[in-house]
């Protein structure tokens, strides 16, 4: 029965995607290549699911693959779980558009694993069972700690999941032209099939397959791009500095300051910090959430329950660090390679966030848009991106479902007295519920700005889960009161600050921008250079309070700027110009301009309609009150502080009595949950 169902789901996903393909980065005549590659990946993963389903009967097999995953396998699976489409396509894109600043993101993702390796992986393997709730319930009040742990797990996973579903849907549409709803449902059906039938075993192997594909694709691309320069780092960077497309991009980014710079200086500027990240405090805040949040992500934590011993958990982090770090070093070459070979203008033409940099680079190294090999490469990268989304989503659904079934249903509702069969049914049923919810949320959130949701997931994990885990594992005085208070305060602060941050939509700013597009801008007189202004106090850097002077960077002198025409006027001008042109290249360029202007006009008009009459954000604010995009700087210390303060204020007998056992067991692995024999 399982085989038929699995095969049916695969066929359904493939057929539905085939039927709805519209315009995308992959040209129509080469789409069959993408589908062939992706069909191959689906076939392979479905076979794995079928094989895994036959070995998945007990809860330990469903949640933890029977604790039979080896360290090396788990290392690859962690990489597959962690390297989302955002990091593969997004970071390569940021580097291709902003150079150095994009690469700074890469670093944090690897450093995060030091926390995982040193303080999380082995102890959690030694005392944990299936979920974050199990770890916290070891010495804290089981019901209270499982409740907050489950809520936190579901919150973090939902944020992450929504970002993946929406981002994935948009990405697949841009890449292959598949309708947004169809790709969200397609991703949902595939991921449900893996999780519900094959549990952790199938999910693990889907993640391994995806990680191998992703790493292979990246290595191949880098071999081609870097190989042109004989694998010389200065040679490659010299090509970046000397590239006119890169120089033009820097000139656009630095604005008026570019007038006094030589082309060589402009190119070199691409390799220096400050083109994208303007607010250092925000940058540090993001860094804190990244480095401390990873260790609190439930879907990463869950991976350590799949290996037989703490030594294997250690080995798996080492492998994961090798793979993840190696991958992020490659992003430097992918991003800069795309900048010189494809160019920021063409990358931006397809996607504003730069997500198409790596796929376009693949097309270029294969021989360009008109070559078979180029399109095969593009098709391959597109299929890998699809597989990436599915694999990450599967891990997230499994984490959320385990919190729902194991912590809430079995732990709290049934008081740990559920029969083995009942537990497995609860696990599968929860996976179906979470999966369907993920599809529904993905469809409901279409067109929403979800980029900040991943940051929020990391921030909540760092402010809520991590303090609770660390103090439970390492601090004798920690107890239920501290853990519950810390988790609630940490999570609420992180979420609350984001709600009043610049990440939200503020109608007045949107309306102003839309009017600028439609009505044009008046001429600007020449301005003199201005020195930097410091904020009046540190708090003023964080909050928009009364009487605050905001910090401003130094501004170079600017020359007089002519008035900019409104969209309608600009279109008339462009059309008049088009009529006079004869050169095919110029005509092509003006046509592109017209298309871009029309797109901007349509967006501005729809914004005007959507926000007409509104003056405040959904939180009732006219402009952001919290000035950082990332809440970690405040919410993480607050989460840690709350655990300490509330633990000291109240006493909890069980937490104290269980300390010796917990501490001995987390260090030695005595009585750790063993592997199930097959």
């Amino acid at each position, binding site marked *: 029965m399982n085989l038929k169902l699995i095969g049916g789901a695969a066929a359904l996903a493939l057929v539905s995607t085939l039927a709805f393909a519209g315009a995308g980065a992959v040209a129509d005549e080469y789409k069959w290549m993408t589908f062939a590659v992706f069909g191959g990946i689906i076939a392979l993963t479905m076979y794995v699911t079928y094989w895994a389903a036959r070995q998945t009967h007990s809860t330990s097999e469903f949640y933890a693959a029977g604790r039979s995953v080896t360290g090396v396998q788990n290392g690859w699976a962690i990489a597959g779980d962690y390297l989302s489409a955002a990091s593969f396509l997004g970071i390569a894109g940021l580097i291709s558009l902003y150079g150095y600043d994009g690469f700074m993101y890469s670093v944090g993702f*690897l450093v995060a694993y*030091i926390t995982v390796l040193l303080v999380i992986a082995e102890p959690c393997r030694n005392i944990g069972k299936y979920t974050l709730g199990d770890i916290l319930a070891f010495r804290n009040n089981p019901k209270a700690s499982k409740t907050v742990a489950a809520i936190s797990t579901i919150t973090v996973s939902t944020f992450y999941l929504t970002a993946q579903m929406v981002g994935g849907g948009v990405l697949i549409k841009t890449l292959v032209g598949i309708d947004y709803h169809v790709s969200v449902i397609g991703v949902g059906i595939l991921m449900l099939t893996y999780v519900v039938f094959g549990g952790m075993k199938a999910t693990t192997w889907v993640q391994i397959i995806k990680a191998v594909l992703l790493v292979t694709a990246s290595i191949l691309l880098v071999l081609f791009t870097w190989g042109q320069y004989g694998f010389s780092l*200065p040679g490659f*960077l*010299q090509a970046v500095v000397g590239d006119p497309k890169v120089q033009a991009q820097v000139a656009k980014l630095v604005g008026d300051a570019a007038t006094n710079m030589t082309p060589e200086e402009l190119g070199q500027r691409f390799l*220096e*910090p400050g083109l994208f990240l303007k607010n250092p405090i925000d940058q540090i805040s993001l860094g804190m959430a990244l480095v401390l949040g990873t260790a609190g992500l439930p879907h990463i934590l869950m991976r350590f329950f799949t290996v037989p011993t703490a030594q294997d958990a250690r080995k798996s982090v*080492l492998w994961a660090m090798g793979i993840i770090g190696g991958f992020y070093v490659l992003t430097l070459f992918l991003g800069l390679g795309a900048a010189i070979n494809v160019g920021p203008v063409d990358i931006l033409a397809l996607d504003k966030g730069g997500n198409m940099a790596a796929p376009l680079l693949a097309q270029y190294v294969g021989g360009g848009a008109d070559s078979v090999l180029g399109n095969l490469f593009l098709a391959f990268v597109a299929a890998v991106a699809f597989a990436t989304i599915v694999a990450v989503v599967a891990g997230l659904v499994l984490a959320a479902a385990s919190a729902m079934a194991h912590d809430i249903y079995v732990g709290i509702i049934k008081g740990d007295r559920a029969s083995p069969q009942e537990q497995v049914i609860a696990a599968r049923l929860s996976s179906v519920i979470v999966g369907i919810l993920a599809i529904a949320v993905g469809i409901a959130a279409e067109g929403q700005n979800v980029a900040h949701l991943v940051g929020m997931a990391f921030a909540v994990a760092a402010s809520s889960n991590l303090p609770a885990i660390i103090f439970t594992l390492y601090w004798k005085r920690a107890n239920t009161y501290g853990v519950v208070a810390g988790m609630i305060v940490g999570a609420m602060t992180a979420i609350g600050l984001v709600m009043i941050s610049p990440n939200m939509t503020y109608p007045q700013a949107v309306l102003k921008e839309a009017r600028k597009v439609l009505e044009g801008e008046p001429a600007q007189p020449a301005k003199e250079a201005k020195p930097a202004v410091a904020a009046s106090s540190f708090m003023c850097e964080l909050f928009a309070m009364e009487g605050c002077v905001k910090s401003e960077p130094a501004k170079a002198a600017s020359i007089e700027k002519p008035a900019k025409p409104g969209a309608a006027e600009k279109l008339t001008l462009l059309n008049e110009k088009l009529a006079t042109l004869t050169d095919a290249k110029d005509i092509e360029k003006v046509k592109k301009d017209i298309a871009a202007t029309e797109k901007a006009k349509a967006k501005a008009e729809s914004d005007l309609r959507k926000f007409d009459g509104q003056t405040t954000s959904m939180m009732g604010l006219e402009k952001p009150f919290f000035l950082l995009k990332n809440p970690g700087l405040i919410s993480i210390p607050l989460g840690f502080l709350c655990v300490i303060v509330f633990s000291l204020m109240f006493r909890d007998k069980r937490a104290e009595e269980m300390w*010796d056992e917990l501490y*001995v067991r987390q260090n030695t692995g005595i009585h750790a949950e063993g592997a199930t024999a097959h």
Partner: protein
Amino acid sequence: MAKTVMNWAAIDADPRFQTLHRKKTAFLWGLMLFSVIFYFLLPIGSAYFQELFKVKVWGPLNIGIVFALSQFIVAWAIAGIYARRANREFDAMAEAIIRDAHNIR
């Protein structure tokens, strides 16, 4: 398999366990502290020491890029140092305690 009853407090108080605990604590949190400080030098440096980051050392290769790449090397080195010590020393110490655990009363 039924799990034997252990006297956890006695094991915790055992000198061998105390040695393991002391060595591990100092080593782990030391490494952790170092890695966090080293990491935050990157965003701090790129924001407040831009002139230093711009200094070219090898063709167009500047200190900023070298420092960012060094973050990878240092992260791997920390992982390597930890793994070496854990594999050679901590595992053996824990093993000795595990073997003797049911005798510790």
